[in-house]
């Protein structure tokens, strides 16, 4: 295969200890790459302690083509802390680069320096990171920027793009911070430029960075914020919790500018309560949390279902149960999101699979919530919340609120907030509207909202059946099939952040000659049953890879379709591994021995 000189597809991994600035360094790298016009997918891994000794890794895939997940191997690896880096240096491919410190300040025990672990085919680049940092800025704190400069120097990346990103990143800090980081970058770049490049990592000329804007690269959380803002979010109440906090932090900046209401409440219970109140009052209102917060909110969520309040709750899952693995990813709150709470509380659950999906689902969530007058949960996970991708936002804003039809009643009639209709949806009035005064409640109630136990079966049907048409909501992708059409040996069914790995796996399997397709399911409640059943009919074997132990999605699907599936669970706290899915696909396809030729090519 001839390589197009301008074709770039590299993955950079930066590994350090908490406090080394690993994540900040990765952040600058990915923003710079996006500014240079590359497609970026990036994901950071970090520990719960702020400083302490925990491991941080930032992985950034930079590509001139569309990609769906991180690569299996990294091309460039930077160690800011050998102890943490040693177990990961094996992820660097042959003839890829390993960058590390050559003059530690303290003795290390034998074998605890990374030079003892670099494979013969990997190319080592040892240099005095700390010393260069100290020389440039009088402090060792800029080691993370020095290594970026080194990479930029080694691969001849344009300094001004990095300068721009550094200036933007530290814009709120004193000028000296920008100056120091720029100095550190330049010093690293000189060092990198002086080194003879021995690896075979090819960085093509960037497509275009003159018109680039970092808006095209964002995390799942940023995409959700963007969707919310385009949809005209009016109120946000929240309580910080990893990994949802950055949604709140961004909205804390944006909502006041738009004259909305933003408040950090004392806890999640207060957060969702205030959200419900604002939504009742007619504002587009949302909150965001993670599993533990969702558990706290479950009671209030029930109130939202019962009182038919259109609110949006973003749930970014992390490892559980309980406080669990607060900084690790998992897809184990599906049950809680779909079923959690007291009583029969059917709600709409959307699980986007990539950053662009986050943007679209968030943009449409309010309209769906308002259409069906019920809470909508956007179910993502830490991997999607924090991973960066480049997305192309709509040129036109299609999410803005449409004019609401004011309920019309005959003069003298009493407004029935929960009127029984052909589609089970009752016209909604807002406080302050003339003649439509009513009360809503968490108690079971009649059409007018008055407490009433006797009508429970009728109202249960109303609350459940009104959601049925949601799977055909215009403009919303609720599921989609990829890969081979017609009957296939293996169908991979996936949801959420895992689908990127599933898709990359499917391409690899197809390249090996396995007939397979993949389907993503975005709407988890209610389920798009027609498409799912059709997919089952086409696939000899169904594989469901997901990031939880018991196979919550497999249970959901298998129970709904009434057919068994093969589960693949991965609960290490890190994203799904392509190799694991591939092995399972091969097994299911019946190719007993993996086709070797595909491995090294």
């Amino acid at each position, binding site marked *: 295969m001839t390589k197009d000189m301008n074709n770039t597809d590299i993955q950079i991994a930066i590994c350090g200890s908490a406090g080394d600035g690993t994540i900040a360094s990765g952040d600058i790298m990915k923003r710079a790459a996006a500014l240079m016009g590359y497609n970026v997918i990036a994901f950071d891994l970090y520990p719960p302690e702020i400083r302490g000794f925990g491991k941080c890794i930032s992985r950034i895939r930079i590509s001139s083509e569309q990609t769906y997940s991180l690569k299996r191997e990294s091309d460039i690896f930077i160690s800011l802390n050998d102890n943490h880096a040693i177990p990961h240096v094996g992820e660097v491919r042959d003839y890829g680069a390993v960058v590390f410190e050559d003059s*530690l300040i303290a003795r290390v025990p034998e074998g605890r320096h990374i*030079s003892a672990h670099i494979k013969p085919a990997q190319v080592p680049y*040892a240099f005095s990171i700390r010393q260069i940092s100290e020389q440039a800025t009088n402090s060792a704190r800029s080691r993370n920027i020095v290594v970026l400069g080194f990479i930029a120097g080694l691969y001849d990346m344009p300094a001004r793009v990095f300068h721009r990103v550094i200036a933007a990143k530290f814009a709120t800090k004193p000028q000296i911070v920008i100056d120091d980081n720029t100095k550190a970058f330049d010093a690293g770049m000189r060092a990198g430029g002086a080194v003879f490049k021995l690896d075979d990592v090819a960085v093509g000329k960037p497509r275009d960075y003159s018109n680039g804007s970092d808006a095209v690269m964002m995390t799942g959380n940023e995409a959700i914020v963007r969707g919310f803002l385009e949809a005209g979010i009016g109120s946000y109440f929240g309580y910080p919790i990893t990994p949802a906090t950055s949604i709140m932090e961004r909205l804390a900046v944006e909502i006041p500018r738009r004259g909305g209401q933003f408040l950090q409440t004392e806890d999640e219970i207060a957060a969702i309560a205030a959200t419900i109140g604002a939504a009742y009052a007619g504002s587009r209102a949302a909150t965001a949390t993670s599993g533990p917060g969702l558990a706290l909110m479950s009671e209030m969520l029930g109130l939202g279902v019962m009182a038919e309040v259109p609110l949006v709750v973003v749930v970014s899952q992390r490892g559980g149960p309980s406080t669990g693995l607060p900084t690790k990813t998992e897809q184990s709150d599906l049950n809680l999101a779909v079923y959690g709470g007291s009583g029969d509380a059917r709600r709409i659950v959307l699980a986007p699979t990539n950053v662009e999906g986050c943007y679209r689902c968030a943009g449409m969530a309010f309209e769906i919530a308002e259409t069906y007058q019920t809470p909508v949960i956007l179910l993502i996970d830490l991997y999607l919340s924090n991973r960066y991708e480049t997305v192309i936002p709509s040129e036109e804003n299609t999410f803005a609120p449409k004019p609401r039809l004011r309920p019309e009643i005959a003069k003298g009639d009493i407004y029935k907030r929960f009127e029984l209709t052909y589609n089970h949806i009752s016209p909604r009035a807002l406080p302050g509207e003339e003649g439509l005064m009513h009360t809503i409640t968490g108690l079971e109630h009649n059409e007018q909202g008055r407490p009433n136990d006797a009508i429970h079966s009728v109202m249960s049907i109303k609350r459940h059946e009104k959601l049925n048409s949601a799977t055909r909501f215009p403009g919303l992708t609720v599921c989609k099939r990829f890969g081979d059409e017609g009957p296939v040996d293996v169908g991979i069914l996936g949801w959420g952040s895992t689908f990127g790995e599933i898709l990359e796996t499917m391409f690899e399997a197809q390249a090996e000659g396995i007939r397979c397709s993949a389907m993503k399911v975005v709407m988890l409640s209610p389920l798009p049953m027609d498409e799912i059943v059709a997919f089952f009919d086409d696939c000899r074997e169904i594989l469901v890879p997901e990031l939880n132990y018991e196979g919550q999605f497999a249970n959901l699907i298998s129970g709904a379709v009434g057919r068994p599936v093969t589960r693949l669970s991965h609960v290490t706290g890190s994203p799904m591994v392509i190799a694991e899915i591939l092995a399972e696909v091969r097994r299911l396809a019946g190719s007993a021995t993996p086709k070797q030729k595909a491995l090294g090519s």
Partner: protein
Amino acid sequence: MTAPLHHVIIGSGSAGYGAAMTLRGEDADCMITMVTIDALPFYNRYDLPGVFRGHHDWRKLLAVPPARYDELGIKLRRSSRVVDVDGERQTISLAHQEDVAYDRLLVCAGGRSYLAENLIDSVGLMHGFGSFEAAMRVYRALPKGGTAIIIGGDMIGIDLALTLLDTGYRVVLIANQQTFWPHVVEPVERKRLLKALENKGMTIFADERPVGVLDTRNKKFSRAVALESGTEITGDVVMSFCGLSSSVEFMLGAGVDIERGILVNPELRTTNETIWAAGDICQIWHDKEKIYKFYHGWKNVRVMGELAARNMSGSHEIFDVEVEDRLDIDDDGNLRSTFWTR
């Protein structure tokens, strides 16, 4: 059962590589670690002039594919500089602050190109040729058909010079005592050999002493060499090839005897029971001549590495190579050397 021995080899040149492979052959279970300042696995430095013949991918220069080291269980420690050897505690200290313990140590760190003291101030203006990276830098600094000025011209330099002539470059040779090193050449013979090089197209200054290198980047040629006579020679790159001086600084604390190189007995063992030395870094006791002698040239070096490895594994072989010192360059510039083969 005793634990397998840990053999540490400092240096990944011909001697070190030969030793590692031999050690593995002698003992399937021992641990072998090669420590080297180089970033690349072993390649033949004598092939470096090949960069002018288009060999720009270091992977093609490697003696064996990198994976072979893993297969053989030879641990490669690259980009690691040894700063001290403690012969009593049997550890080596690496510059990045790590100590590595050994049971037996083989030192074959080689030598660095010697540079006359009076040219030390000019070192920043000269190119080296000791590694793949250095060779590539020379390649990139030389414009097509450009001129390389070679001071001295030991066999490494002569080899490079002939390659440069073959590939369309111009070469100016400032000959001195080290020209044709490590061959010892009689004056008459020397005159004939220089003549042969001249016939091949080289420009030769036979009795001149360089006193400095000048940066003339803004002029037609980027470098100039000033001679004692007042003449200035212009060119694109300047390189000094004046033989090797061994790099022994890191061995001063090892408790082994050192003159210019590490002194070893004919079994290549130093005055420390657990340390051997091989290659350009060692001076071997010659029982007949009653002196410690250097033996250069890749054949000798390779033989030394393998021999040291066998002796480290318990053998007692003697380095008994009768070195033939023959050098010939015919009128076509074809070079035949008992120390060097192209």
